[in-house]
């Protein structure tokens, strides 16, 4: 392309062509989606199998989500360094995912702090919560916590994925998030072990599969430019 005068018709075609090129520029590798999809998928499925087959791996598998934070940050920094263009949609989705990260940390804090904090608050009011086994009649202390907290996690998992799918028009993420919302509805009626199974499937459907699709597109575009 040169610095030359063009006709009015050519100008219009050029504007359309360049706007189309900017719009179709594609460079998301899906690294974060693959990482989080693998981690949440593994944690959910391992938790389910431990409950179903009555065994323990000796540590809380969900610790992997904390371990994954550092490689997650590294992937994000590397991806943003590689970007040669920043679109408005990307800026919006970056904000959505940062808010998601903050929300997840808050929810983990909520799940870990609320039971003991509530117990202390009740006891300061001279109230003790008890639970009774209707079969054996056994009475035990009850630590209040959010019932089916994993259902709330499923809503949070679906939120950034739907927002990203909607903003960018990337259908696998929109479909993944709808599946995640369906799992949320199912989890309202299922016991804990099936909530874990649904969480595992949500990680795979919501992030891992869309991430792998993104990665395959990214590789195709990259190889076309080599």
């Amino acid at each position, binding site marked *: *392309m040169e*610095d030359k005068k063009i006709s*009015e018709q050519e100008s*219009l075609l050029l504007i359309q062509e360049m*706007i189309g090129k900017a719009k179709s520029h594609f460079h998301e590798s899906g690294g974060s989606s693959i990482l989080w999809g693998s981690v949440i998928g593994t944690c959910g499925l391992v938790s389910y199998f431990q409950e179903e087959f009555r065994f323990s791996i000796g540590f809380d598998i969900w610790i992997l989500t904390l371990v994954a934070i550092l490689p997650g940050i590294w992937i994000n920094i590397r991806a943003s360094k590689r970007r040669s*263009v920043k679109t408005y949609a990307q800026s919006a989705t970056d904000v959505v995912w940062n808010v998601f990260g903050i929300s997840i940390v808050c929810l983990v804090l909520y799940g870990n702090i609320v039971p003991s904090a509530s117990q202390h608050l009740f006891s300061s009011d001279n109230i003790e919560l008890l639970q009774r086994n209707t079969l054996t009649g056994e009475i035990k202390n009850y630590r209040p916590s959010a019932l089916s907290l994993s259902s709330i996690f499923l809503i949070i998992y679906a939120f950034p994925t739907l927002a990203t799918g909607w903003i960018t028009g990337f259908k696998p993420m929109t479909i993944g998030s709808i599946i995640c919302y369906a799992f949320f509805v199912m989890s309202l009626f299922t016991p804990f072990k099936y909530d874990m199974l649904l969480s595992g499937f949500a990680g795979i459907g919501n992030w891992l599969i869309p991430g792998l699709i993104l990665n395959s597109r990214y590789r195709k575009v990259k190889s076309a430019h080599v």
Partner: protein
Amino acid sequence: MFKDLDPILHSQLRLAVVSLLIGVKEAEFTFLKEKTNSTAGNLSVQIQKLKDAGYIDVVKQFKNNYPQTICKITPQGISAFEEYVKNLQAYLGQSK
């Protein structure tokens, strides 16, 4: 009577650069070079002309020890582009 088309924008490469920048928040020089299929020297000259007209902001910095040039359209550039497209549509509409 039609208004004359903005001479700054009515040039193939400058119009291509502004059309690319209108849809994004900011873009690197390498992105503009790749999409416009232009030479680095020619693109630098046209970017400087757009900058002098106040249509784009140019930030030069270093990334991994390499110089990096980031371009961003200004509000003045957006207005000029909108006016250019309006005049272009009026012209093409009349000539049909």
